[in-house]
C-alpha cells in the first residue's frame, strides 16, 4: 500500500515537472513572437496615419510637428555598422586563420580567455573606453590628416568601438567554422606539395566561404543593435551623414535617448516602438539567414 502511494507520488511529480518543462519551452520559443506582436501593436497608431515607406524613407524628423522620417537614423546605422565590419572583419579572419592553422596550442589557450573577457565586458564600459581613448584619437590624429577640426564624436569613433565589441563574437564563429573543415582536405593538398598558405588560400577559404559570410553578417546584426556604447561616442546629431568624420545618430541610440520625453508628444512613443520593431525584424532576418547558412555548411562537410 505504502509502495503504491510512493509510486503514485513519483508519477505525479514527474507529470508536474514535465508540464512545467513544456510550458517553459513553449514560452521561450514564443518570446520573439510576443516581442514582435507587442511592438507592432504599439506602433500601429503611427502606421495608421502614415505608410511604412513614408516613415522609412523620409528624412524629416520633427516629432513636435508630427513628422517621423527615420532615414537619417537608418543611414547612420548603416554607416556605423559598415565601418565596424570593415575594421573587425579582416582582423578576425586573419586571426582565425592564424589560430586554427598556424598557432601553437598554447596561443589558443591564451586567446580563449581573451575572447571570453572581451565578450563579457559590458557595453557601457566600451562606451567609457571610447570616450577616453577613441574619441580623442579621432579628434587629434584622424581629423588633422583630413585637415578638419572635429570633436571626435563621430561615426568613425562609433564604428571603431563597435568593431572591438563584435571582434570576439565574429572570431568565435570563425574558429568554429574553420574547425568544421576536415583535416584530410588540408593534408591532401599539403601532400601534393602546396605550402600552408596555398592550402589556406585555395582550399580553406573557398570551403569555408559561406561560413565566413555568415559570421560577418552575424557580427553585422550584432553591431546593428548595439546601443549604449555607440550612443556615447557617435555624437547624436539628426542629419543624413555623408562622411565618416561627421556625427551620426543610429536607430538604437534614437530609441534610448528619447524615452523620457516621448510620452508627452503625441505619436512619439509609437514612432520609437516602430523603430524597435524595425530593429527586431532586421536583426531576426539577418540571424535566420546566416545561422541557416552555417548550419548547412556543417551538414554538408
Amino acid at each position, binding site marked *: 500500500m505504502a509502495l503504491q502511494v510512493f509510486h503514485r507520488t513519483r508519477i505525479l511529480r514527474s507529470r508536474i515537472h514535465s508540464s512545467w518543462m513544456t510550458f517553459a519551452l513553449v514560452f*521561450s520559443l514564443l518570446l520573439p513572437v510576443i516581442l514582435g506582436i*507587442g511592438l507592432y501593436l504599439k506602433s500601429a497608431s503611427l502606421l495608421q496615419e502614415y505608410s511604412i515607406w513614408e516613415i522609412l524613407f523620409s528624412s524629416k524628423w520633427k516629432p513636435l510637428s508630427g513628422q517621423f522620417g527615420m532615414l537619417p537614423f537608418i543611414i547612420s546605422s548603416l554607416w556605423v555598422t559598415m565601418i565596424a565590419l570593415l575594421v573587425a572583419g579582416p582582423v578576425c579572419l586573419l586571426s582565425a*586563420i592564424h589560430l586554427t592553422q598556424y598557432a601553437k596550442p598554447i596561443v589558443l589557450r591564451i586567446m580563449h580567455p581573451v575572447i571570453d573577457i572581451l565578450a*563579457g565586458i559590458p557595453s557601457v*564600459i566600451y562606451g567609457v573606453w571610447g570616450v577616453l581613448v577613441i574619441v580623442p584619437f579621432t579628434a587629434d590624429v584622424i581629423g588633422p590628416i583630413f585637415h578638419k577640426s572635429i570633436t571626435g564624436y563621430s561615426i568613425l569613433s562609433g564604428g571603431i568601438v563597435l568593431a572591438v565589441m563584435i571582434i570576439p563574437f565574429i572570431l568565435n564563429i570563425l574558429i568554429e567554422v574553420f574547425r568544421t573543415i576536415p583535416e584530410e582536405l588540408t593534408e591532401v593538398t599539403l601532400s601534393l606539395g602546396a605550402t600552408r598558405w*596555398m592550402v589556406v588560400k585555395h582550399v580553406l577559404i573557398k570551403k569555408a566561404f559561406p561560413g565566413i559570410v555568415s559570421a560577418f553578417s552575424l557580427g553585422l546584426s550584432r553591431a546593428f*543593435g548595439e546601443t549604449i556604447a555607440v550612443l556615447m561616442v557617435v555624437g547624436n546629431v539628426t542629419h543624413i551623414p555623408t562622411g565618416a568624420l561627421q556625427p551620426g545618430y543610429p536607430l538604437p541610440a534614437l530609441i534610448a535617448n528619447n*524615452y523620457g520625453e516621448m510620452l508627452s508628444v503625441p505619436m512619439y512613443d509609437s514612432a520609437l516602438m516602430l523603430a524597435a520593431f524595425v*530593429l527586431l525584424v532586421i536583426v531576426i532576418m539577418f540571424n535566420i539567414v546566416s545561422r541557416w547558412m552555417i548550419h548547412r555548411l556543417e551538414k554538408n562537410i
Partner: protein
Amino acid sequence: MNILKLRKAEELIFRIIMFLATTVIILALCMIIYSILHKGLPSVSWSMISQLPKGGFYFGKEGGILNAILGSVYLASGATLLAFVLGLPVSLYINIHLHKRKKLVNGIRFMLDVMWGIPSIVYGAFGFSVMLFFGMRSSLLAGMLTVTLFILPIMIRAIDEIVKTVPSGLLEATLSLGSTKSETAYRVYFRQCISGITTALLLSFGRAIGDAASVLFTTGYTDNLPTSLAKPTATLPLAIFFQLSSPIEEVKARAYASAVILTVIILIISIISRITSRKYQKNKIK
C-alpha cells in the same frame, strides 16, 4: 626555383600579418582594461562603495554609489534566478524528453540562437510598452522581468551545451532502472552538469549586471536603496552613463571610478567561472 621562393615570401608576409591581427586583439583588451583602471582607480575610494549619494552629489559633493551597486546586484540576481527557473527545465527537456527527436531539437536550438541575437534595447522597449499597458511605474520588478527575458536564451543555450555532452548511455541506464524522465533529469543529469550550470549562471549574471539598454526604460533611477520590488532602482551601468554625461569634472571622475567597479565585478565573475569549470570537471562520469 624562383616561384618557390616567391611562395615562401608570400607565406611569410601573410604569417606576419596574421600574427599581428591576433596581437591587435590581445592588445585591444589590455588597452581597454588599462585605460579604465588608469583613469578610474585614483577616484575609487571606500566611501564611494559604502555610501549613498548625499546632497549635492551630482555637483561633485560627497557620497557614493552604493545604491547603484546594490540595485544592480539585486536586479541581476533576481533575473538570473528567474531565468534559471525557466531555463534549466527547457535545456533538460530538449536533451532528455526530446532525446530521440533530433530534428525538432535542432530547430529549437536554431530558434534560441536567433533569439540570442535580439538586441537588448528591443527587450527594453518591449518591457516598457508592457509596463505602460499594465499601468506599472518603472520599478525593480519591471527591470528584473525585462532582463530575465533578455538573458533567457543565453541561459538555455549555455546549459544546453553542457547537458548535450552527457553520454546517452546514462539516460538509458537510469530509465532501465525504472526512474522517471524527470528524476533522470533533475537527479542524474543535473548533478552531472553542475559545474557547467554554475558557469552558465555566472555568464548570465554577468550579462544581466552589465546591460544598460534593457534597464534604461524599465528600472528608472533613484538615490535611495532598493527596498521593494515595486520601487525604482539605480543600476551600475546607468550610474556610469548618467555621471559621464555631466559637465562637472568630479562627477565625471566618479563615472570612471564606477566603471572600474563594474569592470572588476565582470573580471571576478569570469575568473570564478574559469575556476569552477575546472574544479568539478574531475567528478564527472565520461
